[in-house]
């Protein structure tokens, strides 16, 4: 089966350290695929390589049948890949509304944007998305004053404003309260009906509630892939990952 995103034999080394080591992946349209694995497995680096923040040492990344390997960040974003960062990156000095307006990137030409003040459709889309991520009441305040959970939602909202063909979400529930996480689960389960999503996540409890497909990475390569039930039965996965996860949970 041909995926909307295909990664073939990806390698990435920093000096002598091999971070990604022959990783391949295919992502089907309209699925939510979770990328899990212990610390240092290369999950965030994979997201960096897809979104152009890092260039692979070798290998090929194809998006909608186009080779996007080695393109710069803005070129990849323009092809419809939106990303959220592990540490939420919003424009703290701008208001929530302005943050969302910046993310409405139908027109990216600097010269044409000099003569544009209110882009078509932006206000309407902004209201919808603000309601989606529950920030309607907060549009007028500076993003720097939002709570941690709200900042995470704002960044998800910004990715949505891009109307991307694919969303890359790096730890979208990190630091969220139980209640905030419930709300995020609800948002993601709604989004995956119309979007292709890759979520990098540590928390298996959260993965269980959202994933269609789970991909386990270990030492920069693919360890296992399948439904959450398959993954949880897999012996190798238990060994490298779920074992430690269970230990963590027993501490809570």
């Amino acid at each position, binding site marked *: 089966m041909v995926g909307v995103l295909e990664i073939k034999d990806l390698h990435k080394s920093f000096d002598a350290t091999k971070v990604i080591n022959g990783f391949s992946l295919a992502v089907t349209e309209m699925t939510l695929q979770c990328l899990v694995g212990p610390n240092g497995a290369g999950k965030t680096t994979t997201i960096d390589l897809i979104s152009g923040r890092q260039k692979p040492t070798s290998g090929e990344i194809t998006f909608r049948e186009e080779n996007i390997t080695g393109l710069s960040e*803005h070129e990849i974003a323009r092809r419809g890949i939106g990303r959220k960062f592990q540490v939420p*990156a919003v424009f703290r000095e701008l208001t929530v509304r*302005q943050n969302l307006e910046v993310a409405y990137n139908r027109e990216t030409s*600097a010269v044409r944007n000099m003569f544009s003040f209110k882009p078509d459709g932006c206000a309407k889309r902004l209201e919808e998305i603000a309601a989606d991520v529950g920030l309607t009441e907060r549009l007028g305040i500076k993003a720097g004053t939002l709570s941690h959970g709200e900042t995470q939602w704002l960044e998800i909202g910004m990715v949505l404003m891009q109307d991307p063909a694919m969303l890359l979400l790096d730890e979208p529930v990190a630091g969220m309260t139980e209640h905030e996480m419930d709300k995020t689960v609800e948002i993601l389960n709604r989004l995956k009906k119309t979007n292709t999503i890759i979520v990098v996540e540590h928390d298996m409890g959260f993965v269980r509630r959202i994933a269609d497909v789970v991909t386990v990475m270990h030492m920069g390569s693919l360890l296992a892939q399948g439904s959450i039930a398959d993954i949880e039965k897999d012996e190798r996965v238990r060994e490298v990952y779920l074992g430690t996860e269970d230990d963590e949970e027993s501490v809570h």
Partner: protein
Amino acid sequence: MEKNLYHNRLLQWLVYVVFFAALAVIPLVMDDAFLLNQLATYGVYGMLALSISLCWGFGGILNLGQGIAFGLGAYGMAMTMQMQTQDPEYSPIPPFMLNNGLDALPAIWEPFWNTGFGIALALIVPTVFYLIFGGLMFQARVAGPFFAIMTLAILSALATLFVDLQPYTNGVNGISPPAALDIGGFVIDPYMSTSYWVVFALLVLSTVAAKLLTQSRFGLIVQALHNDSERVRFLGYNVAIYETLVYAASGLIAAIAGCCFAFLTQYVSPAQFDVGFSISMVIWAAIGGRNSLLWAIIGAFLVQGAQSYVGDEFLNSWILILGFSFILIVRFLPGGLGGLAETLLGMVSRKRETQESLTVGAGEPETRGA
């Protein structure tokens, strides 16, 4: 929800109107030609502070070499004015070139026979220079202090170049065109109110254009990349192009200022490329408030005004006073005088809001702050 009157767009435009109306009244009530010429020169400094505010305060690009555009613009205009006083048949080359052993007009001077073409070059050359230099730097993601040092290096190089090319530029002596600028019969006499009006009109024009630029979508994206340029790339914007354009726009304004300076003083020299002068532009913007175009202009007026009237009393110690005020501002008022106004108005607005909510009650919060 915080509603600071300082951020009210309508009110901001209103303040601009009042400010420029006040500047427009000056020549109507004052007929001292010398003073009017001096005030027009302040207008030039205002344009330079405006250009710094656009580039640094707004775009986040610290630029210590704004003299590059200012000097190139001033030389372009002075060359145009010089050639207006030459005659193709009887005196085809400026006298200083004869003294420097040239017997034909250098090719680089030829385009300045034509006034319109000369003025266009005075604006286009520095702007294109900024586009190319900025493009190269920002494409390579040179930023912050590294970029500032590069602008300083280029500025010093240009100053040396213009001194060294004595036969073409008259070296340290500079060029002093013997007659006022004449644009198709419209003479801009530096000691008449005409020159004040021309500078005034150009200051208003560049301020309004810069203000509109900051309020456009381009402006919003520049504000965002000033916050976190890395994040902007992942939204699909080519950051280098945005940075280059905001840098070049500020360069164009500085080039206009350079042209005005040349016709106001009828003199241009490598002093226009002086590093100290470019740094004082940054000090004007910092003292007035680099985040506000208008306050940066006011900063230039205040500092240069103080230098002319107070500085004479202190002579050599003036630079110490200026440096000390700069330190005080950076330490205690990082937003400059404009930042102080913002804080004060914020306090007033909040007080007003509390009072109103006491009398009106908690209802209809949206009707306030207009």
